Every structure is written in C-alpha cells, then in structure tokens.
C-alpha cells in the first residue's frame, strides 16, 4: 500500500477488490448440481426437556388421569385434538392438525437418548447432540449431524447451516458448516462497506469472513442491507428486539411482552409482532436457505423446562414450535417442502406425575416430533410402555422403549442413502438401528 491514498487510488482499489472477492472460495456461488442430494433435513433441538406426555397426551391410557388430574379430562374441554384414540395433541399444536391429516406431521413416543438417571440439562443436551452412548472419553466435542456430513460428498459453503445464537454442538466438527443468525444484520452504508473491504483486504481470515457475511446478510430480504443507509433508530430497535430474544437464557424466547403495547393489537400489528420474534426470523431464514442450495439446517428452541405453571409455559413453547414449522413450510415453498423432513428432539422427557407446583420435573423418555412433505406421517409411532406404577422408569418417568437416535439414523438413511454401518459406527457409535420404522414416503 502506498504512503497515502487519494480518492482515485481508493476507487481503483475498490474495483480490484471486487475481483478478489469473487475469487474467494467462500463466496463462490454453489451451483445446484453441486449439491449431491435433493432431500432436506431440519433438526430442531428443544432445549430444557420438553414434556412428551403433554405434547402428546396419552388420554386413552387408563392411568393417565391419575397421574395428571385435569390433563386427561374430556378432550373437548381442553381443546386437545384426538389423534388415534390413545393420544391427543396439545391444544397449542392445533394449527398443525391440517399437516397431520395430510400425513405431514407425525410423532414417535416413549423415546430417549441413552442418557439415564442424572437428568442434567447440560449433560443431556451434550449427549443428544454428540449422538454417543455416554459422555465419557472426551465425547461431546463434535456432533452427529456434522459427522453425518463428513460421509456425504459435495459439501459446499451453504450446504449446512447452524442458525441462531445457541451453540450447536450437533453441527460442530470438521465438516464445513455455515453459522448464521438472521438478526446479526450487517447494516452498513455503501461507503462503509467499501471501506471495510479495504481495511480487511490484507488479512485473508477477515477478508473472507467479511465477504461471506456480506453475502449471507445481503441475501436477507428484510435487509437490502448493503444498499441501505443505516439509521440509528433501526439499529437500536433491532437490538432491543434481540435482547428480548435472549432474555431467558439463549436463543429464542418469546418477546410478546416487549412487543405488546397495552390495550391490544390490531391483526396487522399482531402479525408484525410475530414476524419480529426471533424464532420466526430463524425459521424464515432457514426456509429461504433450504429453498435454495442448503440441505441441512439446525437450530434450537428454548423454554421447555416447565417446573411450574406448565399449562401456560407449555402453551407458549408449543405455540413457538407450531409457528416455526408453519413458517418453515411457507418460506420454503412447495417443491422444497415436499423433499423436507423436520425433526424436533429434546434431551429427555419429564416426570409422569404433576409435581407440587403445577409442572413436571426432569424425567427420562419423551416424544419426537416429525414434520415435512417427505414424511410418511399422520400417525404416532413407538411402543407405548403404559403408565402404571410398575411401567414407569424408576417409578417416576415415562419408560423409554427405543433409542431416539435410531429414528434419526433411519431418517438419514432414507434421506441421504447412508450405509447402515456408517450410521451405527461413525454417526451414532454404538447404536443398534433395529427395524425400519418407515418414516418417509
């Protein structure tokens, strides 16, 4: 670089930069043919131990009403929807009923990871994402989804995305995965963009990361980011919104309280408020990417640790899950949705009985939710263990009857054609996949 740069030299340099940017390996647009597969997989980690027995209430089990007085009473009274005479869907998932009837929503009940007894969120989530049998021997430093990616050819910059601010151990590992959160808006004036390119140019690490950041954020429909002068009001408003999103530790809690002025909303305002919620932004971003070259996306939804007042908190959490799935579908568009499977899983279930504060404590088996156009759904899978005292795990929790990893493995076998040996040894070491549950069409 010369001693001083006048404006003309600067402009010439910017032009040169344009070329070098395009040459960066991270910015090379992924051609459609480069993606080796057409199918898409979305993994949602429900952090905090989602209560499978509330998502999918076994109201047909004669012991249910005794364990959870109130939850099993007339299905009409609670608004829960009967699925098959044994299970009823939590009322907050009612917006998903049309998917269920079309076979695009399904469940597996009474499943768990191999994790037992300690019931720690941290360890439970680590194990769920590591996909291993236990956490000994330094496991938990990479995730099963990343290990899966290592066994398929043609991974490109945008093939797989970990989305949001939560650490996704699930996606960690040596395979290339893009991390992005749609609320990290890189709103810069055009002048600042050019200057930043210049400032970063001689440092390849920064130059490539900046170029990719511009690409990722520039693709955001809300943005027009690089082209739009930044306004402080926008930035602060945007920021406040995100803070609300982090208010309850981590990713995407509701921020209805912040968004809701007193005296209620008009319908338009409600929709707008919804669109600004972090989970909605994440789902919209993921959907848009999956419509394009992205094949794998993973993110978290929080707020499942319902030790008290479960009626309310579970309704809110499931409302977000339902929004998320519908937003994914809507932003993905028909053809991509038809090739998509969404799987939502949690670290463990919760106690079979209500505790003393209208909630449930950490348990063992839970439920797995599946959705998407590629799904052979409209049913509840799994071997129901029953709920009598002796059927329960440690006389307190729903008994796991199958390893949740088996279903994830069969999904990946069906979607991406992975060998059973690879799945049982590399992706989920020590897993016995067992019989094919026939999850896909």
């Amino acid at each position: 670089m010369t001693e001083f740069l006048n404006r003309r030299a600067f402009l010439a340099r910017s032009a040169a930069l344009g070329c070098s940017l395009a040459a960066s390996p991270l910015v090379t647009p992924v051609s459609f043919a480069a993606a080796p597969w057409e199918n898409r997989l979305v993994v949602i980690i429900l952090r905090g131990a989602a209560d499978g027995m509330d998502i999918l209430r076994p109201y047909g089990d004669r012991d249910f009403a005794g364990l959870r007085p109130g939850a099993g009473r007339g299905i009409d009274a609670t608004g829960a929807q009967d699925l098959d005479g044994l299970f009823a869907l939590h009322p907050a998932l009612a917006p998903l009923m049309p998917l269920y009837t079309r076979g695009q929503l399904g469940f597996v009940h009474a499943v768990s990871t191999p994790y037992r007894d300690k019931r720690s969120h941290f360890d439970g989530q680590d194990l769920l994402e590591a996909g291993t049998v236990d956490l000994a021997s330094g496991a938990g430093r990479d995730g099963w989804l990343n290990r899966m990616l290592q066994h398929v050819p043609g991974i490109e910059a945008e093939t797989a995305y970990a989305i949001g601010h939560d650490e996704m151990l699930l996606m960690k590992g040596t395979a290339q995965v893009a991390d992005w959160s749609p609320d990290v808006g890189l709103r810069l004036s055009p002048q600042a963009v050019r200057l930043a390119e210049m400032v970063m140019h001689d440092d390849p690490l920064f130059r490539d990361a900046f170029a990719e950041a511009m690409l990722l954020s520039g693709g955001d429909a809300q943005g027009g980011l690089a082209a739009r002068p930044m306004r402080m009001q926008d930035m602060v408003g945007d920021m406040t919104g995100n803070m609300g999103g982090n208010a309850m530790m981590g990713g995407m809690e509701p921020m209805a309280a912040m968004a809701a002025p007193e005296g209620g909303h008009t319908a338009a305002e409600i929709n707008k408020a919804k669109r600004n919620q972090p989970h909605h932004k994440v789902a919209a971003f993921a959907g848009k990417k999956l419509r394009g070259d992205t094949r794998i996306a993973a993110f978290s939804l929080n707020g499942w640790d319902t030790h008290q007042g479960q009626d309310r908190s579970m309704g809110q959490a499931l409302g977000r899950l339902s929004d998320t799935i519908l937003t994914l579908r809507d932003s993905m568009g028909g053809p991509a949705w038809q090739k998509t499977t969404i799987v939502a899983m949690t670290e463990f279930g919760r106690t079979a009985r209500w505790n003393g504060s209208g909630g449930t404590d950490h348990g063992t088996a839970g439920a797995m939710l599946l959705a998407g156009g590629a799904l052979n759904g409209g049913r509840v899978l799994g071997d129901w263990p029953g709920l009598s005292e002796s059927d329960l795990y440690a006389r307190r929790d729903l008994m796991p009857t199958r390893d949740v990893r088996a279903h994830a493995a069969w999904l990946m076998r069906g979607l991406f054609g992975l060998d059973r040996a690879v799945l049982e040894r590399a992706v989920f070491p020590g897993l016995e996949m067992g019989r094919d549950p026939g999850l896909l069409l």
Partner: protein
Amino acid sequence: MAKFDPTLAEIRFGNGLSPTIAPVPSVGDMLARLTGPDLNAQSFPIESFDRFRDRMKLKQAIARERRKLRGKPEGKELQKQIKLMQKDARIDWARWTGRAMMRRAWGQDGFRERLVGFWADHFTAQGKRGLLRRATAPYVEDSIRPHITGTFADLVVAATTAPLMLHYLDQQLSIGPNSDKAARMGAKAGLNENLAREVLELHTLGVGAQYSQDDVRQLAELFTGMIYTPQQGFKFQKDRAEPGAETVLGVSYGGGKPNIADIRAALVDLANHPATARHIAGKLAVHFVSDTPDPALVDALTARFLDSGGDLMQVYAALLDHPAAWQPDLQNVKPPFDFIASAYRALQPRADFFDTEDEKTMKQVMASQLTRMGQPWERPTGPDGWPEEDEAWITPQGLAARMHWAMVIPERMVALPDPRDFVDAALAGHAPEPLRFAARAAESRREGVGLVLASPAFQRR
C-alpha cells in the same frame, strides 16, 4: 532481534492502548506491578466467593422454610423472595462483568488482568443451576486471582478445591464405593470421575500425556471426601472417602486415615510433572503470542517452569524476556470479551457505567453482545474453556457481530472521538495506511470509529 516495545506490551500482553494511560515502560515494570498491590481489584471490587456463600445460605434457609409452607400463601411469599434473590444475583453478575471490563479499561496493570483471564479459562468452572450460575466471577476472585503469582501447584490446589469447581465437575456427587457413606446409602452411592479426569486431561498433564484410565479412576478415588456446603464452603468429609491407598502415575497416596493432605500431595506432584510443564508452557505461548508459537519459546517456558519448580513469576519472566514474544506483527485475534475490553480502553467510557445503568441496558451493551460474538460470558460449552484459534472467532457471524458492536455500541456509551485521532489513540504505529485512510474517508464519526474497531489491526494483538 525483536525486543520489548511499550506499545506492543500493552496490545499483546495488556488490554490495548489508552489515550490517557501511559504504556508500561519495561518488562521489569510489568513484573513489578504484578507483585505489587492489586489496585485494579481495589478500584473495581467483585464479590468474593465467601460473601457469595451468604446468598446461598440465605436461599437455602428460605427454600427449607418454603417446603414446609407449600401451598399456603406464606409459601408463595417465600417463593417470591427466592425469585428476588435470583434477580439480585443476576444484576450483580452483570455489574461484576462490567467491572471486570473496567479493570481492563482503566487499570495500570493490564498484564495482571490478562493472566487472570488466562487462568480463569484454564480452570474453567461454572454453576449449573440456581444461584451458582452467577458464581463464576466470585470463584475467580477467590480461587484464581490471588494465586497467579505463586507456584502453579498453589493454583492447582486452589482451583481444584474451589466449591464451584467441585460443583461443576460433579465432585460433589462422588462417593467412595467402599466408604462409610456408601455403606449407608447402598446402590445410590458411587464414584464420579469427572473432576479427576479433567484435572489430568485439562488442568495438569494434558490430554496427550502418558496416563491411563486406571490413573483417572485412582485419582477419582483419592478425591472422594472433597465437597462443599453453603455453610462452610470447602469441606473434607471423611465418611465419603474411599479407604486405602491410591496409586496415581506410579506414586502411592494415602492409606492411613482419609486426609486432605494426601489429595494435596497428589495435586502438587501432578502440577510439577514434566508433562504439565510442557502443557502449560504451550498454552501460555499460544494464548499470549500466536496460535502457532515458535517451538523455542515453548521450550524456554518449559525449562523455566521445571527449573523453578513451577514458579509462575519465573515463567512469566521467561515469556517476556523471549524475543519470539515481541515479533512486531500483530498475531492472535482477541476473543470477544478482550475485544470489548480493549475497545473500552481506547474509548474510555465512564468507569462507573455498570454501577449506574439498569439491568436491561447492561444486557444490551454487554451480555447479549458477547453472546452474538460467540462468547456467552462465563458459559463456555465445556471445561476446556474458550477456543484459542483465530478461526473459531472470525466466522462470518462472529465478525458481523463484532462489526455490529463497533458501529452501534460505542455511541451509546461515550461521545465519539474524531476517527482520525482515534486511529492513533487506539493503534499508534500499528495502524496500517488503508485503515488511516478509512478513518479519514468514513461518512460519519460513527462509521469511522466503527471501522477502526472492526479492523484486523485492532482485532489482533
């Protein structure tokens, strides 16, 4: 041959340049300040863990009372009190984080803060539930900070016996299978190897060293008996201890009456092991100098560690005396906390900013920003702490979050300086010409200052 330079000393071994605080003049001064009074801590106090235990005691007492009153209105009231205590701790946690930043922004003794940060990460501990989730800064204040100038063995003993560490790595749950307590509890009692494993793998020998699962198991048996209580803090409880001697790396410990001295002896031996010396030397060189340090530097630190019996002041002196430490090109990327701290040092926000702002503002300018940059504060995913590799931080998302911070937050905290002056104040001779140009050419102060802060020259050290 590269040698000491005051500006580089502040950037690489401190927390960057300040427009008002003169850089440290010599290696001798850097070391002398370390052994002098802890002025940074006096100016910006953080609660000790002993004080923090008072909160735990009170909460435990209220919770006990509440269980008796469950379902009654008085019980609800007590529940509310617990909520308030948790909220208090949350707010104080944000203030402590802010003060830790201010120590770096305003302190004379930058190297001390960096060393505290390094060792706090080496001995990562965090609370997994309840009030303890807020206890990391108090743990560092009591169990790390006072010991950074002693021997490494002192530090290992202090960290291993810290209540937060016993909690974090499950030592609290470990009971000797043949102990008296196990006999009473039956099948529910058992060994937990977590702490023993991490002491060997992370804190002392390093994962590549020669030790076996048997050593882990034996050390775990030796560790039984160590617990903490809110009332007393650390406690050695004989009835949990596994009877008999244990052999770790071929050396036998204990065998008589269960005794904390046996545990201490094993920790001291592990701390002074040659594999530990090399492990620590490598980590210091990577953290302070480069992701790929000159092997000669690691050799020199290892040798000094072993020659001095793990005297940390000697090891720091060897680091600062080595030419490889002073190569003029800026190297490592600052982790997010260090980036923000150095930006504060250059921008000079009010020293009492975090004592006067409300919780929401603190969260907006600090915790949420760190999370966006990939460093949710005091919540690394594992006991191995934060990564050192530049690539772990400068991802598209990580860099975008840093740029977002640089463009948005300073304006909320200070009256922005002229970017043309700021580039000098923040980087002096380390500002490359394109950055000086950008500082002049930016459309606004905000973008000019933001570009300086976001630049590789400022992000590296």
